[in-house]
């Protein structure tokens, strides 16, 4: 066994260093695109020139812009350099559905004419008139359910999850009662971990079964998406779990499950904590009611902030290289050694955080469920 761990250690170290290298390339490509964009006004071959404002020729490397672009959602999936995969845009308004590929916007330089006129402004799709002026009223009535970079990445992760767990389920069906093999032996300890150390320990032996499918799915969903976010190459690299919409949806699901599985005992403890004087109750009950909403809110913030921070830190270290390289090429090389060393360290940390956040989220969710279904068993206290 120890030999396997050692191999894994070596493997992860190699993977990380590759990751780090690729990340640095990605950043450099991104920077290239920025600079090429700024060159458009001069190049006669570019067709979008007319829509582009004239920018200063030597635009400074903008680390903040780069980082924000990396961690926010987008309508196309930037792979490397000029290569980007267009993704479907799906819009719904009272005029009906409009479905087209994001390439129709030509990186925000063109207007797409569907049932309405759409344009991409500052990363958002707006309804515009023929002159490209925004129609704010129509925009506010627009339902945007496009397959963005994050949605596509979400689908990839979910497909990966489906593949992993259906394969594992098949392996179980194939050799029942035997020791786990391959993928099965990688997944099984995690499943048992979620079952024993999260579900059973937080909810209790009697009622954990009902919540286990959600807890397992949430745990692996967060973990796999966190890990995918660490991979800079195309199917990964998106900031899925570090996106507030994803974290919010997960937290809302936890909230809904908690509220709907809350028993009489749970609500009584919130509305009127037994054995507490009325005067204190006036203070305690509002706090408890706020707590019901605060708990999932904190759950959301924790996941969102942790993963987002990880992405920002990794990108910041790389941005340092270019910031220093702009001052002096030699300095850039010098800093790159330091930056890569730091990013390797951060990568290790992020591997841990990826697991830890999945664990913490699932554990806290399980504890909320546990408190909601807890039986009234401490009679002697009141």
């Amino acid at each position, binding site marked *: 066994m120890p030999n396997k761990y050692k191999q894994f250690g070596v493997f992860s170290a190699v993977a990380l260093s590759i990751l780090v290298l690729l990340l640095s390339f990605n950043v450099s490509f991104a920077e290239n695109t920025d600079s090429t964009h700024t060159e458009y006004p001069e190049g006669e071959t570019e067709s979008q020139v007319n829509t582009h404002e004239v920018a200063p020729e030597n635009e400074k490397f903008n680390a903040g812009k780069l980082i*924000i672009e990396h*961690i*926010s*959602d987008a309508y196309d999936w930037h792979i490397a350099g000029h290569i980007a995969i267009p993704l479907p845009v*799906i819009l719904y308004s009272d005029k009906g559905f409009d479905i087209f590929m994001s390439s129709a916007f030509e990186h925000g330089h063109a207007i797409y004419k569907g049932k309405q006129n759409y344009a991409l402004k500052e*990363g958002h799709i707006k309804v515009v008139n023929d002159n490209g002026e925004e129609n704010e009223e129509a925009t506010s009535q627009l*339902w*945007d*359910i*496009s*397959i*963005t970079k*994050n*949605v596509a990445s*979400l*689908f990839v992760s*979910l497909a990966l*999850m*489906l593949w992993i*767990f*259906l394969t*594992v*389920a098949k392996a*179980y*069906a194939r050799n*029942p*009662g*035997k020791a786990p093999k391959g993928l099965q032996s990688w997944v*099984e300890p995690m*499943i*048992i971990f979620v*079952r024993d150390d999260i579900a059973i320990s937080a909810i209790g032996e009697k009622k954990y079964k009902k919540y*286990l*499918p*959600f807890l*397992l*799915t949430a745990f692996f*969903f967060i973990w796999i998406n966190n890990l995918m976010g660490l991979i800079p190459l195309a199917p990964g690299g998106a900031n899925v779990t570090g*996106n*507030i*919409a*994803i974290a*919010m*949806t*997960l937290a809302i*699901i936890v909230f809904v499950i908690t509220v709907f599985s809350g028993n009489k005992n749970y609500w009584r403890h919130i509305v009127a904590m037994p054995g507490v004087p009325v005067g204190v109750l006036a203070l305690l009950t509002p706090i408890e009611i706020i707590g019901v909403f605060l708990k999932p809110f904190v759950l959301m913030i924790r996941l969102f902030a942790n993963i*987002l921070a990880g992405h920002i830190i990794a990108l910041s270290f790389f941005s340092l290289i270019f910031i220093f390289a702009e001052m002096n090429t030699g300095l850039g090389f010098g800093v790159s050694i330091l930056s890569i060393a730091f990013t390797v360290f951060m990568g290790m940390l992020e591997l841990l955080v990826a697991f830890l956040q999945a664990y913490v989220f699932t554990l806290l969710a399980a504890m909320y469920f546990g408190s909601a279904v807890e039986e009234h068993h401490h009679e002697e206290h009141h």
Partner: protein
Amino acid sequence: MELVKPAFGLIFWMCVSFGIIVFILKKFAWTPILTMIKEREESIENALGAAEKARLEMASLKSSNEKILAEARLERDVILKEAHEIKDSIVNEAKSKATQESDKIISSARETINNEKMAAITELKNQVATLSIEIAEKILKSELSNNDKQKTLVKSMLEDVKLN
């Protein structure tokens, strides 16, 4: 602020796809996997239980074997002891019988000897009587060989017989 503004599209797709994935995984992955793990755990538990039971049975078998052995040993001892007793009793009986027999023989011998002795004594007595008669005859013959002597004798005899 862009970062903390949840996008509707992402929430929509997340709800749809997460719901679907929970459903699919629950039906086709979690339920069978957890059932299998549970079954395997139970079978391992059972196997361990059975092994423990077998171990206990083995131990009880061993102890019962030992018990049987001890009983056999005890029985052997009893039998040996009995045999010893029987031997002793036989020997003793034989001894007592022999003593009795020898006593009987000795006593009968003694009786015979006594009888013989008596017979011998009687015969001796008879012999002595005959001899003394013969001696007396001879003495009488010699004493009464002349008249003087006969007269003296009669005289002495008469003297002995005192007339009252």
